[in-house]
């Protein structure tokens, strides 16, 4: 046949096809978007700093000035710290807070941001240098956030959560089982941190700069928080589980001590979107003394202000500014009758201040309670005093140790002075509540639901804080089978106490 003579042409044709096939390399060069970084090109150290900053931003507020934008703002208001100032009207979530009736949709943002944060910590744990501090540190952070989630919602997606390739409709686990596993998670984190070595990844640790001892102290403190939350309503203080878990804390770095606030600072500066998140939410616009909307919107709640004034607490001028003529004014939640005192210099220290995730003061108050309840040995009175001292120090009072000691010793108020108190737990939690003003409303809300302290709501009062948040609306549309299995699809579910609550 004629074509046989053209073998050459056929071979050339196949040659051409081979040239085509050689372009296959190009097929492979096209996996990654040049417009940004794919996650495959990153390791844990590239995500860890962001994850830490997101954790503290979720807690303290966002850098966008708007009405209640802080995930735990409801707790800050319910625990009597801040309230709406005169001249403003509440709408949406702000209005719901004031009638103690948060709706399903109010929790969407809180839920999404915490779970996405966990998703990032999962990445750091799975993609970091094995012997670096990041996997262990991330495991502690993750445990803390899961605890925050379950403390607000009860049963939550846990074992299947934040793993989209495994499930996009994760099932819910029981809050009690989650707590048990979280303690185990912190234990294994402590093992990981103990075995870790200093690596270049430490640079991404914008909380403790790779310090093993501080991470261990933080992990132990979070473990104490997990155990203490279950005492006395779930666990007895002297159970072998509690004592076993706390037995070797001292040998593993102890708790956060004096001056050891867990703070996060990625390099905050006084520029748009780059301020400390608390400052960006409640403080002033960059380079000015003109307050953001939340600065004007919120003022002192009369509950905390009355307490501070009644006990002549020297911290009052650090939490709040005098309203006018050197007098302090506060508003009851939902009744803004006066131009109340605005946030003070102890809370708004500087736009570049490190963001407070967990204070040394809280650590001492928790230890004081644990000792007082008999969970571990120690000097409750001394730990209590250190809690107040650390609060004075954080807020910037001069000579904080002596000033705090004088404040306690000079007071005849059982809410201040443990020595005159017939109810030491009440006194400890009362001062813990004061120290947490504006800094950790969620922890105060947790203590209140667990112990009833501080007793800022009259028994049988009509308006009291909800026992829990409702599951977000998005779960009912996107994970309905699992969320409906919890039987909490009505507003009435807000009255169901958490398993560790009173």
């Amino acid at each position, binding site marked *: 046949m004629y074509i046989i003579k053209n073998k050459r042409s056929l071979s050339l044709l196949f040659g051409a096809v081979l040239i085509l096939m050689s372009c296959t390399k190009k097929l492979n060069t096209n996996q990654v978007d040049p*417009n940004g970084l794919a996650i495959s090109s990153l390791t844990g150290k590239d995500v860890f700093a962001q994850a830490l900053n*997101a954790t503290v931003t979720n807690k303290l507020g966002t850098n966008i000035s708007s009405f209640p934008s802080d995930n735990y703002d409801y707790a800050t208001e319910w625990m009597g710290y801040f309230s709406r100032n005169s001249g403003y009207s509440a709408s949406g979530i702000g209005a719901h807070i004031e009638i103690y009736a948060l709706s399903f949709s109010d929790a969407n943002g809180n839920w999404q941001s915490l779970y996405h944060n966990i998703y990032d910590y999962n990445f750091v744990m799975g993609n970091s240098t094995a012997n670096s501090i990041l996997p262990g540190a991330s495991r502690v952070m993750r445990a803390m956030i899961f605890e925050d989630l379950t403390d607000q919602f009860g049963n939550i997606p846990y074992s299947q959560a934040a793993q989209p390739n495994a499930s996009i409709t994760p099932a819910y686990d029981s809050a009690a089982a989650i707590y048990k596993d979280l303690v185990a998670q912190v234990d294994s984190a402590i093992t990981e941190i103990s075995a870790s070595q200093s690596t270049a990844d430490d640079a991404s640790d914008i909380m403790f700069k790779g310090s093993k001892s501080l991470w261990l102290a933080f992990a132990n403190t979070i473990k104490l928080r997990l155990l203490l939350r279950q005492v006395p309503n779930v666990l007895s203080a002297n159970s072998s589980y509690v004592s076993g878990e706390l037995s070797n804390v001292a040998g593993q770095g102890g708790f956060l001590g004096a001056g050891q606030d867990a703070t996060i600072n990625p390099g905050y500066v006084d520029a748009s979107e780059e301020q400390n998140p608390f400052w960006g939410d409640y403080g002033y616009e960059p380079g000015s003394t003109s307050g953001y909307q939340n600065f004007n919107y919120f003022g002192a709640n009369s509950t905390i202000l009355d307490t501070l004034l009644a006990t002549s607490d020297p911290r009052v001028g650090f939490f709040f500014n005098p309203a006018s003529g050197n007098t302090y004014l506060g508003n009851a939640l939902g009744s803004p009758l006066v131009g109340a005192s605005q946030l003070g210099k102890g809370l708004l220290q500087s736009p570049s201040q490190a963001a407070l995730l967990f204070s040394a003061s809280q650590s001492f108050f928790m230890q004081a309670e644990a000792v007082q309840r008999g969970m571990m040995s120690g000097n409750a009175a001394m730990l209590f005093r250190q809690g107040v001292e650390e609060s004075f120090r954080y807020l910037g009072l001069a000579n904080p140790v002596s000033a705090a000691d004088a404040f306690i010793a000079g007071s005849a108020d059982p809410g201040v002075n443990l020595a005159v108190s017939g109810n030491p737990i009440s006194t400890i939690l009362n001062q813990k509540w004061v120290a947490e003003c504006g800094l950790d409303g969620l922890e105060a809300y947790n203590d209140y639901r667990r112990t009833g302290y501080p007793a800022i709501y009259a028994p049988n009062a009509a308006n009291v804080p909800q026992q829990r948040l409702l599951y977000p609306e998005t779960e009912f549309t996107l994970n309905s089978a699992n969320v409906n299995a919890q039987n909490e699809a009505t507003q009435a579910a807000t009255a169901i106490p958490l398993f560790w609550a009173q």
Partner: protein
Amino acid sequence: MRKLLLLLSIWLGGLAVATAQTKEVTGKVTDNAGAPVPYATIQIKGSKVTSIADADGNFAIRAAAGDILVITSSGVTKREVPVQNAVSGWNIVVTRVSQNLSEVVVTTALGIRRQARDLGYATTQIKTAQLNQAAVVNPATGLAAKVSGVDIRLADNGVNPQVKVTFRGSRSIEGDNAALVVVDGVPVDQTYLPNINPADIQDVTVLKGSNAAALYGMAASNGVMVISTKKGKGKFSLNYSNTVSVESISYFPPFQSEYSGYGGEPTGAWPNPPGGAGSLIYYVNPYTGLPNTVPFENEDYGNAYNSNDFRPDSIPIGINANGQWIFVPYKAVPNGRKDFFQKGIGDQNKLSASMANSWGGLYISGEHTTKQGVVPKDTYSRTGGRINGNLNFGRFSASGGVSYNNTTTDIAGNSYNQYRPVYFDVLNQLPSTDLKSVKNTNLFQNDQGFVNAYFPNPWWQVNNSRAKNSTNQLVSNLQLNYKLTGWLSITARGGYSRSSTSAPAYIDSINFPAFLANLSPGTFQWGTDSYNPGSQAYESEDIKDHYWDANGDAFLTFNKEVNQFKFTVLAGGNYRERSSYGYWASNQVTEGPYLGQNFIPSGYTKVAAPTAANPDAAYAIYTYKRYDQSVYADATVGYDNWVFLHGSFRNDWTSILDPHDRSFSYPSVDASAVLSDKIEALKASPVSFLKVRIGYAGTGNVSLDGYKTMGVMGNIAAGTAAGGFSAQIPNYGAYAIYPITTTGAGFPYGSGPTSYTQSLTAVQTGLKPEHTQSLETGFELGLFKNRINLEATYYNQVSNNQTIPLQTSQASGISTFVTNAGKVNNSGIELDLHLTPLIRVSGFRFDLDANFAYQNSKVINIAGGSALLDQINYGTTSLGGIYAIAGKAYPQILATDFYRDPQGHIIVNGTTGLPSQNPNPVDMGNANYKYFFGITPRFSYKGVTLSAVFDYRGGAKILNEEGNVFDFAGASTSDAANRQAFIIPNSVINVGTASKPSYVNNTNVPVTSANGGNSSALYWWTDVYSEIGAPYVTSAAFIKLREIALSYELPKQWLGTQPVIRDVNVSLIGRNLFMWKPKTNIWSDPEFSTNATGNAVGYTTEFQTPPTRILSATISATIF
């Protein structure tokens, strides 16, 4: 790519040398009109040596002097020609006999020209004359209603409207359903289609089904529109044509003209003149409690014009440059708003030259088209040129072309604050406003030019808010063919196209006069920042994009007859590389007192990256690349020229999928039989032709998001859907399977480290393409010597593995998971009837073509039957949305509604007479048309031809969102009906309990109002009715007289004996002269669609201009 082409040309050159020594007869078979006769069989008489001509009639055969060549082909008479000597460039002329439908030569996949008779699937060809009979500017619009199963949907009547072309309904829930466009064998981006000079198009072949298109691989599951441009032919000739057109509003919704302006102003007073010491005019009459006229309102809930509550002589509309008030009469002005729109003049000039000889041909054309819109100052222009050439040199032939055009649109942009279009701002003027009288905005002292406290004078908008798009496009192709033997040839083809767009937009700054800001503090505040009433900052935006597409094919074609078998085989490979680059910068000043005054650039101004002085600027750059390659083969075996079996296979590799999943194949097989050639009984019957066919094909569609959205100012001119809020650049689905991380909020802080967070979107590992299986069967019937031709096709397509971005539980850490899920079934019937001619009596001839299509797209399931994810939303408004819903036709309209009883009556409150809104949207029906019916009659008598196109579409619903704009503003006639307290017609009251309802007709409870008195109309329309979508859903059916054209060919004797002008044709053309639609649809043209390019068809908004009609006149002359 370039390397490849170079290699191929060297290789072909080498072959030419290597084979030139063989003695052979080469030539071309043409008909008596000079047109090539493709695929003619050339046989040496008395031997088995045969050769088959190629698509252009070229053949080569080894023959000795004295042999006799027998030329046969369907549709021509057999001819025998003796071979004198071995020659080349021999032209053998054969005589055509009358053609039937199937003897048409059509362009099939890869640009291969084949006889329709041989094909096992439906194809339709539209010739240049049919396409251009109404002098269209956009070639796609010239196809409407002419072919069954082809849905041409026009987005609006702007100067450069988007057109969506879909064949046989929708297959993909989230992916692209628009047909692939191929020009001269090379796929081009769909955005090129509207910019082709329609006069350059030789024909358009519509490969409706995936059976026809399977050879194109993944791009072809939606069918292919194969466009062939003209080639040089005949002796040298020049053609010039000029078309002048006038476009005007053909339909405007009815307005009420009884009531003046009032929008719920409190009982306060307005000083007249403002700021002066004159008498006070009260918003609400303190004596009657009824609303007075408020001249700066946009809502028309005030007094009736025939009452005397307001100064009867005049109302103030603004202050002139001397500080004096301008008054207009206190009465409604007929057409005061409609007459804002102008008549748009269009002008098309086209010149082309063509010539050909046995060596080859050349076609050169140029055009310049300009158009004004019905919106004043809107303009469109297109300037372009094309050179097509072909060369025959023995066994070697080459053809190629290059075209270039610039298309520029310059249109009114959106207004400040809410980015409203001109039409919206026209609607929101008072009935007393004669817009023509306020055309000169310089008359007014203030920048705004008109007192309306909410929306600008539309004249201000056309002068001060502009959006532009200037696009340059280059499309080129080169095809080289070498005939290795009489039956084997090799083809190499390359295509390269590129496009670059610049789309700037701006909205000028405004300082509103203080009196407006001070009218009622806290009530009338301007600007986005409530602390800065009185100023509106300058905004500008610039969008640029570039993309290019390089495409190469190489394939062998094999044509051979062995005994009674005819084999046609093709095998080859393809490589395609696409790339795009986009740039967006915006300069929006949203904060700070009078910041807008700091820089007031004039006109379109470039915007740079943000600076300390201008921190509100935004800036982004995107770049995308995609590579694809394929191998394919296609074979047809014909037996005895009446049974044909055809199969094709293609395998694609694409860079946008994971290496494990990037290879996939598309098989297709079909068979056809021309029964009329074989069944003796038919030969005596009226049946002159009968062919049956059946086919199966598998195609795929990688439906990853294909566009990147840029911009914020709603620059409509930038090239997207009307009402869209951005421009789109093609990203070809590149990189979609590996979502990128984002920089953590605020990072880097100061000089600190940068850190990242994972995307909220994740993609299923091993994502696969959508897979469509298509079955097609049909017949073609010719009766009475083919004077009646009927084609019928039934198809059924099932598309699996839909690629869907599912919304996830947030507890999964993300919010969107892109995964394979869902199934769509799409089926239909197509009928095409040709009566050619129906009547022919002494010079009078009447032809009639008709086509009908039924199509039904249905979503079988979405997330595998999971109830919670069975609904995909394409965008929601307060009125409703367009959805894909499992078990329903696709797509579906859901709209908000009142609570109704089981009979559909509105349930009202027994005390207030008011209804309440049902929070669950109600299913209102499907948005894609199900029935299509086109009729194209054509009369001719001597040189006069009258042709028309009628188009019916039905079986769909439409959500007319702009109806809500009319009603909200109190501008509609329905508003005028219920000004006093009224009882909602056909309403019922529940006299039972909530659980055991019992409804009685409401005969005595009128709507009472929270606003008190008789202003209930305002409350009813703006607070109750405006959130309800159901009343705005109507049938989308229509009948249009799309085209009517009367043309006259000047008698030759008039031209005399002069050698220059060969013929002259004049024609008068009307487009969209009439539209009939159901009485319930009082709003707009139901063909319009806010989202022209996406899948969310089925709602119209104020972003489309009102329907228009176009009248035009064309003169064309052929010279030499």
